[in-house]
């Protein structure tokens, strides 16, 4: 770790001569830039996907927590009877944890955003709402509907958030898959850069021989390669990241419609994650090249 940190400080400090001891040309440099760029571009999308699906899972999860609602629309005269019957049914239904009648004040609060604070609730044919909290296993909606139809004909069971449950786990999975993709992309980049570094070392056997002749230690020679590769990876990843970010920006905004396709844009602090990409690419290249170089130099003795 100490060695790696020392390497990074010298990477930042710079040494003109040392940077130039390795000839600048060669396909390995292009390969490293291109790979890092392409990988950074892909990482931007994987991140976008991951953030968007995580957001979706959150939102749907909130909706689900409210669970189901029973709505009773009946003439004022019948409502008390229907309500009592409904409560009776709910309290004897397996999977219902609790059933609470939403008070008039609470209903008022719910309606306020639409109708303003002075809704004359008693004048309006506002239905009675019962908030149902489910147990872990939930209730059987079809069975409950059948019983309600028989005993409380005025009741309508609204459990539309229920169908989202598999979607939430799908969204959570998708978010996880995004991160797995990022890990795979990082692994693939590291492998590619390792290969490129080994090729560069092999192509520069003559340079290495000269450096050794004048007393260069392995760490010096490795650093010359490492700096070059890390710099290439950084620039490549920066370009790839910017292009990826622009592509994501061009996607339609989520303002109009909530959905996985339209919600791919980064939001708020998510953008900051993008800045990590080129830095991380440089670190990956640094570590991969250093390990490859020290290994090759060990074999070349």
């Amino acid at each position, binding site marked *: 770790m100490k060695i790696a940190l020392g390497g990074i400080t010298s990477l930042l400090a710079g040494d003109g001569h040392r940077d130039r*001891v390795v*000839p600048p040309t060669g396909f390995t440099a292009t390969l490293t830039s291109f790979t890092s760029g392409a990988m950074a571009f892909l990482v931007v999308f994987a991140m976008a996907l991951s953030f968007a699906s995580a957001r979706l899972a959150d939102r749907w999860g909130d909706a689900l927590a409210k669970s189901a609602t029973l709505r009773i629309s009946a003439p004022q005269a019948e409502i008390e009877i229907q309500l009592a019957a409904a409560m009776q049914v709910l309290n004897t239904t397996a999977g219902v944890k609790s059933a609470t009648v939403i008070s008039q004040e609470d209903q008022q609060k719910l309606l306020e955003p639409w109708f303003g604070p002075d809704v004359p609730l008693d004048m309006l044919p506002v239905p009675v709402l019962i908030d149902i909290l489910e147990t872990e296993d939930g209730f059987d909606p079809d069975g409950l509907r059948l019983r309600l139809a028989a005993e409380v004909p005025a009741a309508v069971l609204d459990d539309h958030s229920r169908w989202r449950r598999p979607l939430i786990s799908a969204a959570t999975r998708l978010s996880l898959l995004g991160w797995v993709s990022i890990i795979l992309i990082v692994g693939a980049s590291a492998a590619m850069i390792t290969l490129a570094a080994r090729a560069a070392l092999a192509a520069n056997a003559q340079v290495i021989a*000269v450096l050794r002749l004048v*007393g*260069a*230690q392995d760490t010096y020679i490795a650093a010359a390669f490492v700096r070059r590769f890390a710099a290439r990876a950084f620039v490549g990843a920066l370009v790839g990241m910017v292009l990826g970010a622009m592509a994501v920006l061009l996607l339609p905004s989520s303002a109009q419609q909530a959905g996985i396709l339209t919600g791919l844009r980064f939001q708020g602090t998510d953008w900051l994650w993008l800045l990590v990409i080129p830095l991380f690419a440089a670190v990956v290249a640094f570590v991969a090249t250093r390990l490859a170089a020290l290994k090759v130099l060990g074999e070349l003795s």
Partner: protein
Amino acid sequence: MIELENAAYSYGGGELISDMTLSISSGSFYFLTGPSGAGKTTLLKMCYGALVPTAGHVRLFGQDLRDMTRDDIAIARRRVGVVHQDCQFLDHLSVVDNVALPLSVAGQSGLADNANLKELLAWVGLSKRANAYPPELSGGERQRAALARAIIMSPDVILADEPTGNVDWEMSQRLLKLLVELNRMGKTVLIASHDLSLIRAAKSQVQARVLRIYNRRIQLAGADL
């Protein structure tokens, strides 16, 4: 400072050199001679740790090569100036950068711009070629650049492998003069060469010991040269 004790080297077949015992003493001027293929380059490579003897011992500044890590050897090499047989350079760096390379490698690159470097280039007669690139140099210029690079760290020993291999007589005399001058400054000099006329020319300028590889062994050559 460099000692061989029953050192032998084999590239895989039979031993190329066998049972060599030799102590390079400080301040001396040596020639190492022998026909082409006798093993002069091989012996020199052991003297700067590029090859480890397959039998016996080689000690650099008191340390046995066998006990030295690659880093140890790299550091010891900074005290040995080597003029390689084929004068390898970094072709993408200018002459002055190549000459300063040992400083950079030793972490002293700050000194690379100093007056010593200019003085050194002037001394080997390459001031005008400082910004040229190695492939543009003539044989003699390459040898002088290699010599400048070999001595920039102010080493205790200078090992030169066929320094006059690709140059005309006049240039070989010039190179010899530089090496003799270094010896007068107190440096140990060892020149491997199969060129007997060079050795004869040197004898008038310096007290040289002539070592000869003969029949895989090393021997001190007599007046027969």
